[in-house]
Every structure is written in C-alpha cells, then in structure tokens.
C-alpha cells in the first residue's frame, strides 16, 4: 500500500553533453537560436550542431551571423535551408551574404517586434494575432489586413520550433533559468516556443538556489541542460578572427 504523501519531487531535467543534447535533431528541423549581437549566442551549442551534421535546417534568429563562428559558420557549412530573421545584413555577415546571393538560402525578413511576438505566440498557444507593424509596407504584402477601431492591422502567424538553442547564466536542475543582462533577449520566448529547448548554462545549481521571484524562464519551458562553464562570448571570438570548425 502506498502511504499518502506529497513527497513526489519536482521534475528534474537531463544534464547532457552538447553532443548528446543535440543528437536527435533531424534534417529539416526548425531550430530557434537565441542571441542578439554578441549577447546570448549559444556558440558552443551551435558548434555542436555543426559537428552533429543536420542539414536543411530552418533557423530563427534575429540576425544571420557574424564572421566565421556560431550561426555564420552553420550557414557557411550550408546546413541552413531557410532563415527567418529581422536583420540579416551586416558587414561581417559574409557567410549569409554569399549563400543568399548564390540563391542557396531562403530568407524571410520579419520586423523584429513581429518576430518576437510570433515566437511568443507560438509558445503561448496563440495561432495568430494582429499588429499595426508593417501595415502599408512590402512586408505586409499577401497578408490579411483587418481594421479594428478604424485602423488597419496585419494578421501574423505564430512561430514554433522543434528545438531551441539558448544560452543562460544560471540554471537549476529543474530547468529554471536566469540570464545575463541583454543576453536574455529572445531566449525566454524561444524556450516557450520550442518542443525541446536545449539550454547551455554557465552555472548549474541545485533546485532552490534561484529565488522563485527572480526566475525568468520557469523549468517547464526547459528541455535539456548543457553545462558550459567556460562558454566564450561570440563577440570575443569574432574579434579574435576565430573560425569554426
């Protein structure tokens, strides 16, 4: 007989190597990747994804990579069939620029706030919503326009991902996360919108070590944890002229 108890413990998340954490990503997967500028790019996870070899990926990120590391390297290695982002253009985005000009990568340009809201909607079970953003511009072409209170809005659809790859500062074993300053950016909503969020964390702590009031991503949105205490900032790699692999 089972003794009545409330001793069931909370859900712990697997702590894996980057290799194991990404092993099941299939060709053709949609992968949401956090980061904005140098802040929050999960460089170690992206490099592990390059090693893993998945192809024909659809990537969602605000940008299209810089230099020869991280997302730029993934693109250069021709693993990305399509990218959904707000700002793919940059002097240092030569990998994307080359692939785009050669017609080897599809681009969906989305206003940054619409991109964020579409991802948040994907995580929140909202299939579509209306926004004023892009009304009257080429980015609204082909989309439904609808008036509310006499103003036109464009209908936008949710974005979901098979996986998210994000970087955080601190994770507990139950997957609760906090971030470092503006490295937070897209990570919390990408964890929400992915079937499996793979999180690389600088610090790994026990449940209870993060004040419940300060948790940014509750563990329910975290799938797998990769402990990367020595993670390198993408901006630093870029300035060093690093190249992966």
């Amino acid at each position: 007989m089972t003794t009545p108890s409330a001793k069931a413990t909370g859900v712990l998340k697997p702590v894996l190597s980057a290799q194991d954490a990404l092993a099941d990503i299939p060709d053709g997967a949609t992968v949401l990747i956090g980061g904005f500028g140098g802040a929050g790019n999960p460089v170690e996870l992206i490099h592990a994804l390059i090693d893993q070899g998945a192809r024909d990926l659809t990537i969602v990120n605000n940008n299209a990579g810089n230099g020869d590391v991280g997302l730029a390297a993934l693109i250069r290695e021709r693993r990305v069939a399509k990218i959904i982002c707000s700002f793919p253009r940059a002097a240092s985005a030569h990998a994307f620029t080359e692939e785009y000009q050669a017609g080897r990568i599809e681009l969906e340009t989305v206003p940054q706030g619409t991109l964020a809201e579409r991802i948040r909607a994907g995580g929140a079970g909202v299939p579509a919503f209306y926004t004023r953003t892009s009304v009257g511009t080429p980015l609204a072409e082909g989309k439904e326009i609808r008036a509310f209170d006499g103003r036109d809005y464009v209908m936008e659809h949710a974005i979901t991902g098979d996986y998210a790859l994000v970087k955080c500062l601190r994770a507990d074993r139950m997957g609760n996360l906090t971030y470092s300053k503006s490295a937070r950016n897209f990570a919390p909503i990408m964890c929400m919108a992915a079937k499996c969020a793979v999180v690389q964390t600088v610090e790994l702590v026990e449940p209870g070590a993060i004040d419940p009031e300060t948790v940014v991503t509750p563990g329910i949105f975290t799938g797998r944890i990769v402990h990367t205490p020595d993670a390198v900032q993408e901006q630093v790699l870029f300035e060093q002229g690093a190249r992966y692999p």
Partner: protein
Amino acid sequence: MTPAADAAATAKPKKIGLTRAQMAWRAAQDIPDGSYVNLGIGMPELAALYVPDGRQVTYHTENGVLGFGEGPPKGEEDWDLVNAGKKAIGLLPGASIFHHADSFAMIRGGHIDLAILGAFQIAPNGDLANWRAGNEGIPAVGGAMDLVSGARQVWCITDHTTRAGEAKLMDACTYPLTGIGCVTRVYTDLAVIHVVEGRFHLKAIAEGITVEELQAKTASPLVVEGEIEVMAPPAL
C-alpha cells in the same frame, strides 16, 4: 460461518465503489513520471497526496506558481501565496512565480502535461461540461475552459452518477460545455474509463459491481476489451 463472515452478514451491505480519497489515489497512480500537472479544486487536488514516492511531478496553479506544495498550518498562512482555489500553499525547492498571462501561456501553449478536473457531464467524443449545471445562477468559469483546451491531457475525477443516480457519462452533454473533444480519461468511484476515438473504453472497475451494472449507470455504450483491472485501492 466464521466470526468475520458472521459480522459481514449482520452489518449493513458494504458500500460498493471508491471513496473520494480512493478515487484521487487511483488517478494519482497514473500520473506520468516527469509531468507538469494542474489539479482542480476538490477531489483532483487530493491526488497530489497519493502520487507514488519518488515520481517526479511538478504542480502548476493558474494564478502564477509552479512547484508548490502543502501550505503552512492553519493560523500561519501567508495569504500572498495561494493556489487557484485560494488556499494557502507553500513553495518547494525549484519553484517559480510568474504573472497570469505567462501562467496561461503555459496552459494554452500545451506545456501542462495533464489537467485533472471535476465533471458534471462527459461524452464519448471527449466533450466536457463542468462549469455550470444549466443556465441558471451566476456564470463563473475561472480557468476551466483554458485548462481543458490547453493541457495535453485532461482527466476527470467524478462520481460515476449524480446524487440522484443520473448518469454523468452520456452520449452527449446537455449542460453548457466547458470544452469539446478534450477529456482523455475518467476516474469515477466505479470505474476507470479511457476516452478513445469517440468511445468510452472500460479499463478498470470497482470490486463488487459487474460490467452490466456499470453499463446501467452509464448513458453511453462502454467498450470492454482486453483485461479489465479490478481496482484495489488502499483504505483511505
């Protein structure tokens, strides 16, 4: 006749079926390891008491807490920390707090693995009525409609019939619906029933009642296939 059999013969007939706590216990045995669960007020929330030791379950409450447990003793409550039933609760290690829109993003977005709720009426197509018995009185819905349409699985814990003996499992709900096609399992005092492809599948039955007697209390055909568990809950 042994003394025990003698006592049984002279006592009033043993009540057939599970107690409220036993119904919660039976549902608790099926809560999957590694799941995020939202328990409705009443019998559903009792289930937390009976989840087998060591099974990993995290509880969610609509008003913005994940990872809560029992509250402090009466008189020591912190009324800033309550569950959706407005009861004082406590935080377990690894808890998190968030606002209402984020809380329902968890529900609507399909992140809650399981919601266990009460029921007025359930139909074999998965339709559920549990928010108002007809159109009288003040319509109050709370989070029920969000839970039944958002959680990945919806189980109901309910008496098999109303106090008046009317069936709660029926071909089609007559009360205003809470959600359509949402219920996947029903735990009653008499049976465990899975709702699969538009039919009620009997999976377990209480001791002392036959399938025919159960069918008589069920206003929709029961599919009876394979082995049917005879429920053996502990005394609760």
